[in-house]
């Protein structure tokens, strides 16, 4: 009985924790987006203001540029042979859509990278 208690104590007293944060690309500047004007700004203007896009998508004669900044937070807890590992990833995204002449038609943005949290796998 006491050996079982000792084993239980070993399991409880020897945890290992992991906190890891990784980011991908720089964050698009929300203020810079307001300077872009659909129907007027061009692809050159967008690249000058936001920098090189993460992805260029050809949409028939039209095109779209994606800007994405992501934050991943990883939380781990190990108790000898049992572990919990949670990865929470959120991103800031900006899509700039252009017509066949390279003129900006639409801009869409979502800023969610701040929602990434350190939390355990069973938490909601």
């Amino acid at each position, binding site marked *: 009985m*006491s*050996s079982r208690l*000792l*084993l239980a104590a*070993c*399991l409880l007293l*020897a945890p290992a924790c992991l906190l890891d944060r990784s980011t991908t690309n720089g964050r698009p500047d929300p203020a810079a987006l307001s300077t872009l004007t659909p129907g007027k700004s061009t692809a050159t203007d967008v690249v000058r203001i936001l920098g090189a896009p993460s992805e260029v*998508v*050809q*949409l*028939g*004669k*039209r095109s*779209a540029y*994606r800007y994405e900044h992501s934050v991943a937070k990883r939380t781990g807890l*190990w108790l*000898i*042979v*049992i*572990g*919990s*590992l*949670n*990865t*929470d*990833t*959120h*991103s800031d*995204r*900006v*899509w700039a859509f252009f017509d066949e002449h390279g003129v900006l038609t*639409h801009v*869409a*943005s*979502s800023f*969610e990278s701040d*929602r990434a949290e350190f939390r355990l*796998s*069973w938490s909601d």
Partner: protein
Amino acid sequence: MVRLIGRALGACALALLGSSCIVLVFSRTRTHQPLEEARIAELVPGATTFDEALARCGAPTDVWELAGDARAIAYGWVDSRGDNVNLQLPLSRDFTPNLELEQGRKNLYGVVLFFDAHDVLTAVQRGSLLTLKRESTPSAELE
């Protein structure tokens, strides 16, 4: 007393050895924020425009072209749970066999909005983004 100490040391040795070889991991992966149902319900095929969809749903996670100069935008998210038994045997410096048995559910989900060449919404589909993209992309080239 000696026997008790021996058993305790044996148990600790077993536990320490086991920590590097066999690990039961309860893992969870969450990526992106799910699109709210209320926003999806506001989308009306035949009426909602591309501009309105972007204003209501925000920046998509993926965009691709469709046949006839049409296009699709996708909102995807992941919330997967996996209970993994990870067995590692460090046999040598350069060789570590790793056997991973996974049981659990993986949930890769998303909503795809299809627009015609005039940027009017034609359909809203739910499901695996990869499958929906494969089924609707004119070229077979997919990452």
